């Protein structure tokens, strides 16, 4: 199965290359932005380490493919041409896209990492302080957010847990004692009304909805 996928991947690459070559040969896409040449860089042993590409043809590199010989390790892209990288693609040993980094602050540093599985988002890691440290992790099922964990005080321990159903929060729990476990929990119904609160194991059902 895996070898079939790999074969399919290689075939796809060859098809792409043929298409690109044909377009180049017959002068296709005359009105499209002219793509600059790719500059390969090698280490002392002749191993390919970097592909630098001026993809939009504005005379400045905007795409960098970090290579381990024939394998792509990471691709960094300045998608908006402002001189700062804003997209990072990370590839695993099987050349599958492992995660995509983006910069919400657009400061040239990744602060959000999105993980796929079967083409769907399954996890998003965020560094709200833009310091590279992940303090919030969101989990998705069928493309929808189902829960999140957060280290709100940055001490390295998760102290807030959220669950979601149908796009709205269904519960939130806090560790107010620094134990690493929830000590308070609030649960909501689908209308957003509080239906329970208190210590997680014996949340107090509300007698009147708040």
């Amino acid at each position, binding site marked *: 199965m895996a070898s079939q996928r790999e074969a399919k991947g290689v075939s796809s690459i060859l098809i792409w290359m043929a298409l690109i070559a044909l377009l180049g040969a017959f002068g296709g896409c005359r009105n499209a932005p002219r793509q600059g040449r790719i500059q390969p860089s090698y280490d002392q042993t002749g191993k390919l380490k970097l592909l630098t*590409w001026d993809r939009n043809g504005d005379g400045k590199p905007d795409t960098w493919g970090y290579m381990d010989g024939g394998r792509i390790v990471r*691709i960094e*892209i300045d998608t908006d041409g402002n001189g700062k990288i804003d997209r990072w693609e990370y*590839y695993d040993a099987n050349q599958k896209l492992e995660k995509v980094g983006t910069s919400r*602050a657009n400061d040239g540093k990744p602060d959000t990492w999105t993980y796929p599985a079967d083409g769907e988002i399954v996890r998003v890691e965020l560094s709200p302080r833009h310091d590279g440290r992940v303090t919030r992790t969101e989990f998705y099922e069928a493309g929808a957010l189902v829960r*999140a964990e957060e280290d709100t005080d940055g001490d390295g321990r998760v102290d807030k847990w959220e669950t979601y159903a149908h796009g*709205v929060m269904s519960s939130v729990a806090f560790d107010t004692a620094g134990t690493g476990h929830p000590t308070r929990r609030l649960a909501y119904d689908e209308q957003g009304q509080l239906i329970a609160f208190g210590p997680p194991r014996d949340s107090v059902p509300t007698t009147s909805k708040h």
Partner: protein
Amino acid sequence: MTFKRSVALVTAIGSLTLFAPPLRAVAAPAQQAVVTAQGLTINGTVVKGGSTVPNIRLRVRNVDTGAIAGQITSDQNGAFTFTVPAAGLYMVEAINDDGKVIGAGEALNVNTASTTPFITTVVLSTTRNAAIFSSTALILLAAAGGAAITTIITDEGGSTPPPVSPER
């Protein structure tokens, strides 16, 4: 106004001044109230996808009692300020137009000992699109193939022969 009436008025004002509580005593609670208000103030920001979100409806809730301490809306900069009535464990909830909870800040142990406002961030979940996973690898490799380094891309053994390139 006659002289007698003037004297009476001055006397009355004097009496009020004389028997009124000292000014400091009046001012003291006010000053104390300011300090207390600072200690019980929550300042916060609503963010979504790294950007602040204006005009979001917010509820401040006592985590221990479940009671709502008040409601407020984030301003044009996504910021808000709220003063809770008493010390306690509070959180700020963001709600949508239907009143459903769409985000929450951290639990804040609001107390009078603090002389600075408590800071919170209410994170709203972002709608995420799987289109983010459109890979650049094939495009890059195809373009690299055009740059006469095609020999490397079909290598699967890891021992890549030194590629031949016009740039070398």
